[in-house]
């Protein structure tokens, strides 16, 4: 059963993967992506990160991305967890875990989900450096990744 969730508190990626591995004996592969908070961005030391989101739309957008992954690949289960609120360096920001019978589908779907999440799910990062707070700018390379999926079927 696919699951998407927004968490205001730190989460343990290993526990999330254990929940996904679950009970289906036909699962042969689980691919996970864990996004972590880095202590450096644009050459500046980052002390902490605040993640804002659009409650309601966020869950809906993540579910649509997971549904799209299901329509493109034969995957069995999917788990997406995303933090909001205040994070410190090394904290997990996001987990995408995908289970399938064979590895290829899980790899493709996992990459697709995180690529789409980066450009379509309403989250915004604000970082605190020694100079104060600043909103993080979107990256063009993330748009390029999304466009590449839009042009391909799988």
């Amino acid at each position, binding site marked *: 059963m696919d699951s998407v969730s927004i968490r205001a508190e730190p989460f343990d990626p290993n526990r999330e993967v254990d929940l996904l591995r679950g009970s289906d004996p036909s699962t042969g592969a689980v691919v996970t992506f864990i*996004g972590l908070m880095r202590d450096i961005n644009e050459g500046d030391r980052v002390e902490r990160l605040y993640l804002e989101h*659009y409650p309601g739309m966020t869950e809906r957008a993540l579910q649509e991305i997971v549904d799209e992954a299901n329509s493109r690949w034969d995957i069995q289960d999917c788990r997406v967890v995303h933090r909001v609120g205040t994070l410190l360096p090394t904290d997990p*920001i996001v987990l995408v875990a995908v289970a399938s019978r064979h590895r290829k589908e899980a790899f493709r779907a996992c990459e697709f989900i995180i690529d789409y999440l980066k*450009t379509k*799910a*309403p989250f*915004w990062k*604000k970082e605190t450096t020694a100079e104060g707070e600043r909103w993080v700018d*979107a990256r063009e390379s993330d748009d390029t990744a999304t466009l590449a999926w839009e042009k391909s079927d799988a």
Partner: protein
Amino acid sequence: MIQILFFARFREELGVESEQIELDGPSSIDDLLHILRGRGEAWARLFAENQRVMMAVNQELADKNTPLKAGDEVAFFPPVTGG
């Protein structure tokens, strides 16, 4: 009436989190942007044609041509940066 929401940098720079406005007759997001741009310097700058603005209607990503009707929830926000 439609409900308008602003997020992240937009909310901070405009000093508005949400508001309700009445639209006259059939409208699109483009019509709404035109009204918002007329409100002053910060509004005109944030919603200028060359600015990257994301928008949603009833919590679905939308574009300037998306039509609006009474009761809609419209949101404007900067390009997203999650993950």
